[in-house]
């Protein structure tokens, strides 16, 4: 999303978006008075395109496109510093999480590599029932086209006997796969209604 | 002395009774809850329109008979509200009220009255928002219960002696 000097607040205001964020996160975003405590607490502010305080402000203004296209929501590590210190008791981390899920749904994920890592992780869980660390990293790095990342760690880990070469398998893997399928099939939103739009294959696992 | 029992001429048409005609009487102490209701009004906190307020000096003034009579004669719900415990303008009036209303609550079923039609609560003069919440919740509760048939339609007896009146 390009930063422009003039934001046409009225035209770009999406009130449904505000309501959806509030429903998905269970938080009242109008309580935010922009004190900046979350931004000051956030360990990732240096990397965000919009600091978290501004993400909250953009949500208040219903600026759906900017928010869902921002890198901030995908760089949030869910460390809870913002939530812990919010003077208005807003669970800010939960708002960020809701926004991540919404950006997946609307196919506007700004950092596909992070999503890809999460997807790879979930695929590993879906296949084996557990995460196979030794398998996950190389596969991800291959797919991310940076095969030599963390290559430096390998010899030492090998020496320490920390690399396993076979995934530990959950016996009832079928059950795990079923959980994935069911969640994918009839996604229940908070009100129990089926979700309006299915995930596109690009953004799904 | 004038007879204040319900007007015998009032139509006892059950089918006409809709939730539109729900009437709730609220006994509010002058110092706290009446002020709280005023505050809610000043702040324009919207509320259901079923409540009719009777101003009393203190919840300590509440004779449980007022509540029983109201419900027996067909008011759909009774809400009593006063100052928070320890914040009574008359020091202890609401303590008396609390004991009496607890006792009354235990007796209402014996009179054939659903205890859900009666509620007492404490709302201070500054708690406009709390008052809005109380009124809204209680009105919704009475709407769910529907109109109160009272005693008159069950027994057909309109001549219950009015004990407190002389």
């Amino acid at each position, binding site marked *: 999303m390009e930063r422009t000097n003039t934001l046409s607040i009225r035209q770009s205001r999406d009130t449904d978006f505000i309501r959806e964020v509030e429903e998905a996160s269970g938080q009242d975003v109008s*309580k935010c*008075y922009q*004190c*900046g*405590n979350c931004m*000051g*607490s*956030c360990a990732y*502010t*240096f990397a965000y395109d*919009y*600091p978290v*305080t*501004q993400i909250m402000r953009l949500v208040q203004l219903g600026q759906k496109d900017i928010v869902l296209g921002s890198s901030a929501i995908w760089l949030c590590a869910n460390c809870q510093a913002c939530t812990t*210190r*919010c*003077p*208005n*008791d807003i669970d800010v981390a939960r708002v960020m999480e809701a926004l991540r899920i919404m950006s997946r749904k609307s196919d506007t994920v700004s950092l596909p590599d992070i999503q890809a890592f999460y997807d790879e992780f979930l695929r590993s869980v879906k296949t084996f029932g557990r995460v196979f660390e030794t398998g996950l990293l190389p596969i991800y790095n291959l797919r991310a086209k940076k095969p030599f990342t963390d290559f430096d760690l390998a010899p030492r880990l090998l020496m320490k006997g920390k690399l396993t070469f076979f995934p530990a398998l959950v016996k009832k893997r079928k059950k795990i796969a079923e959980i994935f399928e069911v969640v994918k099939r009839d996604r229940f939103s908070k009100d129990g209604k089926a979700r309006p739009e299915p995930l596109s294959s690009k953004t799904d696992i | 002395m004038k007879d*204040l*029992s*319900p*007007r015998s001429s*009032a139509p006892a048409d059950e089918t006409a009774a809709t939730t539109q005609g729900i009437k709730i009487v609220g006994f509010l102490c002058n110092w*706290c809850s*009446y002020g709280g*209701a*005023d505050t809610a*009004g000043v702040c324009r906190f*919207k*509320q*259901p*329109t079923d409540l*009719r307020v*009777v101003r*009393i*000096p*203190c919840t300590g*003034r509440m*004779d449980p008979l*007022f509540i029983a*009579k*109201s419900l027996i*004669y067909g*008011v759909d719900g009774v809400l009593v509200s006063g*100052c928070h415990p*320890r914040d*009574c*303008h*008359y*020091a202890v*009036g609401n303590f*008396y009220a609390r004991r*009496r209303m607890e006792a009354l609550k235990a007796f209402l079923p014996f009179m054939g009255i659903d205890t859900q039609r009666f509620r007492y609560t404490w709302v201070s*003069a*500054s708690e406009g928002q709390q008052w*809005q919440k109380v009124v809204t919740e209680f009105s919704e509760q009475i709407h769910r219960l529907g109109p109160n048939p*009272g005693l008159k339609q069950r027994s057909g007896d309109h001549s219950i002696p009015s004990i*407190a*009146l002389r």
Partner: protein
Amino acid sequence: MRIGVFVCNCGTNIAGTVDTAKVASEALTFADVVYATNYMYTCSEPGQQEIQRAIGEHGLQGVVVAACSPRMHEPTFRRAVEKAGLNKYMFEMANIREHVSWIGNDKAANTAKAADLVRMAVAKLRFNQPLFSSKMPVNKRLLVIGGGVAGIQAALDCADGGMDVVMVERKQYIGGKMAQLDKTFPTIDCSSCILGPKMVDVSQKENITLYASSEIESISGYIGNFTVDIRKKATYVNWDACTGCGACMEKCPAKNTPDVFNENLGSARAINIPFPQAIPKKAVIDARHCRQLNGKKCGVCAKICPVKAIDFEMKDTIVTEKVGAIIAATGYDLFDHSVYGEYGAGRYPDVITGIQYERILSASGPYGGHIQRPSDGKEPKNIVFLACVGSRDASVGRPYCSGVCCMYIAKQAILTKDHLPESNSYVFYMDIRAPGKNYDEFVRRAQEEYGVQYIRGRVAKIYPRGDRMVVQGADTLLGVQVEVEADLVVLATGIESSAGAGELAEKLRISYDQYGFYMESHPKLRPVETNTAGVYLAGACQGPKDIPSSVAQGSAAASKVQSLFAHDTIETNPQVALVNERNCIACGKCIQVCPFGAIQWKELRGGIKKAEVLPTVCQGCGVCNATCPPKAVQLQHATDNQLLAEVNELCA
């Protein structure tokens, strides 16, 4: 009874959502109503004249006004009908504004509800009786609770007016929080220079009786005639003898007594006069730290005292005072920042509160007015101020603005530059609230003339790095995270209600809000009165306030007392309980339940006992009425018949 009904439009306040003409026309169908109309502004002078005209023209014996809350205009309309020759209790109000038009937009439902409320009022009015007040003498003595600047102002104003004043102060000195301040905004006056003379006046006025180190034990009575028990706490020093020479303080060996006046920066002695200008200048022994009082061998002060004033055996005593009015001026406390884990929860010595910084700045403070760090005594170069610590923070239960912090931070930052020209001050704020006269200009001066850096953002965390404190936060205007390595951090802790405010409110029978601040009678029009007649408020006990506002309210409360005391007698409220002797069965229950002892036995001829209400003592709560088994006691103007008549209208 011939009843007239007046339905007020209140401009569009009521008429906007209630069909007032319809309500009036419906009122004409109610029993005994002979006249009904609606009017634009019934409370206006022509509106009141209209009522008076109708009373004469239609021979009305009772009047109902359907308008705003009776808590607002009942006295207005009572006066109006009284002028037209009716007894003022032959009047009822139906509240169709706060309880109808302002809380719903459904005009049909509102109109029906308004008509119901008018019908209830008419039904009640039909049982109304003329009531008559009697007169009662007023005891023209004032009690002021709290000796801060608001209480001092109120006491001096009344004493200047020739009234006797009793002042009760919990601490051993008067002056309150202001006595601890170094300078005051927005003019940088020296606090003790402007407060000191007033404190001296209090001690020198012959018609002011000061009880310091004393608290209110109990209060009984009512406007014009209160009886107050005051607990004089044991000071272990005979104040009649003590000259305040301070010899005892110098020799006291208990050197690790916390210096409360200096906000625990440094230490005091167990026997102490907190500051040189203290009024009364008398020593007090802190029983928790005195060696002698804790079973150790000492008694040094008793030996050194030239006037033999020390009395280790002293006990609390109770004195009784009779007064006609009370001003509560109990002030405030400061928020305890130990709940802020992210700011160190009080475990970092160089993270201090604003009031501690006042003591540091003060020439009579623990460091003699030289700014230095509590941890190592070094002069700080970079000082960070944090606004809103315990203010505007719902997560710590303090969602309100304390109103003074923006200003006192600006003042402290300016003073810091004066003391240490090489220093840099940084202020983290959310909004600057400077609405007073010359206030915003003052904050601008801090920035423009004194170079104080203002950073808009709440501080996220304070932690030590080496011997400095890192203040980590955000500049929301830039949208970046910022940190300042500070030598000293000052937390502008907010205002909260005074400890024990709730207990005192119960004794005074006044209300307080959820934060413990005392409730005024009306937020706009009766800001110094309470709902208990004869009890007035001054200063921060009613809500956060700065010095000018506290002084103004002190004077305002004093003027209320003076207008009360301008009369030798006051009219009693006739809405009191009355016993119908014929029905009284002499069970005595009413006597037991009366909270005011207003009911007593009366012996008739032949030794027959009956209950009797003392109308000047009765406060009109009606507990007796609800208790009386044969309903012989009836609360005038709220009798069983009157209240049931109202309910009865809804049963139809």
